[in-house]
């Protein structure tokens, strides 16, 4: 359990302080900023959930949006057809996406590398087409949820979910045997198996876990936006953005997805506001992706490391993942 010594570490203090700041946010900023903050929280959660699969385990999915969309639709349908309260619907949709991902994951995870990327993408497109032709989901008319116009509510829901995913990533993937096993799968799957790791089980767990988080966040999103459409929650853009955020921030790290989500989401919103009437922001987005990959392949998170050589590096140490030197 937490010891006093751990509590006084700068990292922990900063974490707790930022939690307090984030909790007071709704009473400080305007409604629009709060909406942006809600969006940031949502994307942090999504990027972190993708990072469990793509970063720690090295299985690059271009179909993670499917989990998001399935969660959104299940929550929507449960609320509209069965009139369940939001949190009940959310939890059920989390469970269903988890089970769904276990079923889908078993065949899909036999693929690896680019094949896995294309396979997940094909699956996600299939889901979108399926929802488009189904009558229950409203097809191309989309699905409307009961309106709920409390900004603070959604901010705290998204904040809570992002925190949940963050803490899961921290405790399960960064600082545990489970995380090491997952990384072992990424590095050398065959070797991991010969060391006693049941890689099939590990892969399925990670896939299902990260899908479940994406699904729950999707459910919260559906209630927040109140209107979902196959193209908006199951479109390729959702998965693409998760991938880019993680890459931008630093793949396979704890803070990378967080930073990537903030930078990309705020940047996108800013560009839309600043040059509202042009498609030029696509150019900036594309250029940014290309440049980051060419010159900062470890993501923005590696900037402090570049810094470190010139400065004392206090900042850098703060954000680099904890090193374990003691045996």
């Amino acid at each position: 359990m937490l010891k006093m010594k751990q509590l006084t570490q700068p990292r922990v203090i900063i974490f707790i302080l930022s939690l307090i700041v984030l909790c007071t946010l709704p009473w400080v900023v305007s409604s629009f900023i709060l909406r942006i903050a809600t969006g940031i929280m949502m994307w942090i959660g999504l990027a972190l959930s993708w990072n469990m699969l793509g970063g720690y385990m090295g299985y690059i999915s271009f179909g993670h949006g499917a989990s998001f969309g399935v969660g959104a639709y299940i929550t929507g349908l449960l609320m509209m057809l069965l009139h369940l309260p939001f949190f009940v619907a959310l939890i059920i949709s989390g469970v269903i996406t988890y089970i769904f991902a276990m079923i889908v994951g078993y065949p899909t995870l036999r693929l690896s590398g680019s094949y896995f990327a294309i396979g997940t993408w094909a699956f996600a497109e299939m889901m979108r087409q399926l929802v488009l032709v189904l009558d229950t989901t409203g097809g191309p008319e989309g699905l409307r949820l009961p309106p709920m116009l409390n900004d603070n509510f959604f901010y705290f829901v998204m904040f809570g979910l992002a925190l949940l995913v963050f803490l899961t990533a921290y405790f399960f993937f960064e600082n545990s045997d489970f995380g090491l096993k997952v990384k072992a799968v990424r590095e050398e799957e065959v070797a991991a198996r010969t060391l006693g790791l049941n890689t099939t089980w590990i892969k399925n767990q990670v896939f299902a876990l990260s899908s479940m988080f994406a699904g729950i966040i999707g459910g919260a999103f559906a209630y927040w936006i109140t209107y979902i459409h196959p193209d908006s929650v199951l479109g390729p853009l959702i998965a693409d953005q998760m991938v880019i955020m993680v890459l931008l921030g630093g793949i396979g790290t704890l803070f990378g997805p967080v930073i990537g989500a903030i930078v990309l989401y705020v940047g996108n919103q800013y560009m839309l506001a600043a040059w509202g009437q042009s498609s030029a922001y696509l150019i900036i987005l594309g250029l940014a992706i290309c440049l980051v990959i060419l010159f900062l392949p470890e993501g923005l998170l590696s900037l402090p490391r570049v810094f470190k050589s010139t400065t004392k590096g206090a900042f850098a140490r703060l954000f680099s993942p904890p090193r374990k030197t003691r045996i």
Partner: protein
Amino acid sequence: MGLFMQTLINGILIGGIFITIAVGFSISYGVMHIVDFAVGEWIMLGAFTAFWLNMYTNVDPLLLIPFIALFFALIGYLFQPVIQKVVNIKHRSAAMMALAFTFGLSTLIRGSALTLWGFNNRNLITVLSEKNVDLFGITVPAIRAGATVFSILVTAAFAYFLYRTKTGITIRAAAENKTVAGLMGIDGHRISRLVYSIYVGLTAMSGVFIGSIFSVFPDMGLRYTAFAFFVVVAGGMGSFSGAIVAGLMLGLISSFVSVYMGGAYVFLILFFILYLILVFFPKGILGKGW
């Protein structure tokens, strides 16, 4: 029976166009291990180049094909070192990097095209456009027939190049096993550059046909990326016969499903089949892919 035959012919003609793209795509995947998300953008650029050239010179787009192929081959040749730099990045998810890079590239090209050329649809008119041939009561759209025949000829020529010329054999060696190829003293960089340039040239060239069969607009790439992926993956990366069979399959499935089941299910079934193929035959339907 007439409908059945018509559907069959339609199916063959839909898939035929994508064979060339699939062949170029998978050979470049074999050599460079890049899944190119920008494949649709090369198609779009090829179609637009044909459109502008046709507008200013009034030369039939079909006659411009050799020029477009060469022009884009040159672009590919000049651009390849950048891609190579990404491929060479020492990173734990190197394949990912390349994938994301091409994704960024595709966004960049699409954004530039939208900004430069606006959002309008354009119609690329060729001498074969909207004409048709009557074959025993089956109507064959001339432009599609032309595209398929041309596509088969180019693919055959490319196959000859790969299997019968020294450079071609070297490329295949590099595609099948990079280490061995390296041991044999093959210059990997030169080969990669050549292959990428061929791939871009072939893809842009196919864009001329695709643009004239459907229509030309900056967002068109997204659609055809999906089709190209289908043919490449279902056929098995790097397999010639696989690409042809998968191309035909793509066409036949879309054709038969839309006639006999309803157009609503075409994409659903296509993606479902693609997914099943990937899971159960990751080396392609003929099992000949890498």
